[in-house]
């Protein structure tokens, strides 16, 4: 339980950063200030400014909303799709199971980041393509886990009782399957959240993601790359932001998984 709380606290901190980060940003993240371009850290720009004179700290804080907010969105839509597919496979008959699992295999037949690059690139750069690309490539693990747990529930006493009582399939899914799926899906969700953050910044870095001048960590790195010789600090900050978020989410996910494993064993 303590681990579950740790994850909740972490999610709250990240959500808070995404929601309130822009409020504590000292400058306008898109205001161009050519005279003060590539400024060193100082009073006006605590982490310096970029090539257009925009404050790096403010862009990082506003970028949190994009990077983390989109990651929340993408991993949660993927969760919904994956649970639907997984439960259809587990609760439906043999054919439904076969069809759902082969569909999952098709989407797994490709490295997901490369697939996301292709989809986002072909559909045209932009936020909606980005969301679509990362969702389409990010629901399969949920589906597999939901199916696995679902199959193990099928013969459980209360599930049999619910279908004998004549409860409808959606109601059985809602009341008898979903609660049992929550722990393992939370673990998968943390992993997918981290993956989404990496994916968003990777697509941004390739120019297929969130478009400038919107501050986003990956696009910030893309901008900073040109100045690697003159002003290397610029590419340090967004990288630290990505690594710190992904690392803490992964660690929280590990703690959660270990906690659940212990509870399962004890």
């Amino acid at each position, binding site marked *: 339980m303590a681990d579950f709380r740790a994850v909740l606290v972490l999610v709250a901190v990240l959500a808070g950063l995404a929601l309130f980060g822009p409020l504590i940003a000292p400058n306008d993240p898109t205001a161009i200030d050519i005279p003060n371009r590539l400024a060193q850290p100082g009073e006006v720009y605590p982490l310096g400014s970029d090539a257009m004179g925009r404050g790096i700290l403010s862009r990082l804080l506003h970028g949190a909303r994009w990077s983390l907010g989109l990651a929340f969105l993408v991993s949660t839509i993927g969760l919904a799709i994956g649970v639907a597919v997984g439960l259809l496979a587990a609760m439906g008959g043999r054919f439904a199971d076969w069809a759902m699992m082969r569909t999952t295999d098709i989407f797994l037949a490709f490295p997901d980041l490369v697939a996301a690059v292709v989809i986002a690139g072909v559909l045209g750069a932009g936020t909606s393509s980005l969301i679509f690309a990362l969702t389409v490539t990010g629901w399969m693990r949920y589906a597999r886990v939901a199916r696995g747990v679902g199959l193990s529930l099928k013969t*459980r*006493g*209360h599930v*049999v*009782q*619910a*279908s*004998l*009582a*004549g*409860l*409808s399939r959606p*109601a059985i899914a809602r*009341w*008898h399957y979903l*609660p*049992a799926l929550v722990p393992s899906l939370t673990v998968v969700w943390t992993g997918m959240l981290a993956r989404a953050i990496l994916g968003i910044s990777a697509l941004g870095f390739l120019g297929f993601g969130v478009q400038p001048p919107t501050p986003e960590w990956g696009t910030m790195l893309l901008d900073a790359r040109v100045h690697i010789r003159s002003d290397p600090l610029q590419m340090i900050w967004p990288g630290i932001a990505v690594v710190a978020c992904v690392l803490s989410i992964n660690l929280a996910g590990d703690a959660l998984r270990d906690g659940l494993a212990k509870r399962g064993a004890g």
Partner: protein
Amino acid sequence: MLKIDGLTARRGGKTVLTDISLAVGPGETLAVLGESGAGKSTLVAATLGLVAPQLGTVTWDGRPLGRGGAALVMQEPRAAFNPALSLRRSVLEPLRAQGMPDDAARIDRLCAGLELDPAMLDRKPYTVSIGQAQRAGILRALIAAPPLVLFDEPLSALDAVTQKQTAGLITALQREEGFAALIVTHDLGYAAAHADAVAVLRAGRIEETAPAADFFRVPRSAYARSLVAAATSLGALERRVA
């Protein structure tokens, strides 16, 4: 009345039940006796339509058992309840699933008959005793007044005192409610005390069917004789120890 006619069922690629024919009328109790592996739980599942029969039919008054046509009391009382929900929610599930209103008066009446404190229903299954959970299980089975109730080893998870008490409560409620009961068990004592008729299931076939009184006086088949003899000698042993 329940009629099982020529039922043959497979499970896991093997024929588990062969040509089973049984009948139970309203208010009657049929005890199906058998050792573990005889096909008792498959019989329950096939009767309820959870396992599709290869051959044969299961009908109630000539029609297939529809939604709410039968209820089941399971062997493991607590596993039969959703751990995430209160007992009350699970007990009300059959009513709600069939679009019937929550009947508080009926719950109270059945609780009284089951000697179960209604406040207990607001707890989760793993916070009550096994005996209480099983009585809540019986409550759920009876709540929507199904014409047929199946009991799958309903007492085997309970201790001896609770077994006796629960068996008495089931019989009393049956007198009041008038449902047909099909009880699958290996417990001859229970059958002797509470069943109207007895069927012996062995290796997936019905070996013998008889009114309970006749069965325990003169079991016809050799297998039934050995069962009764074993139970009698055990009973004698129990009496001697006590």
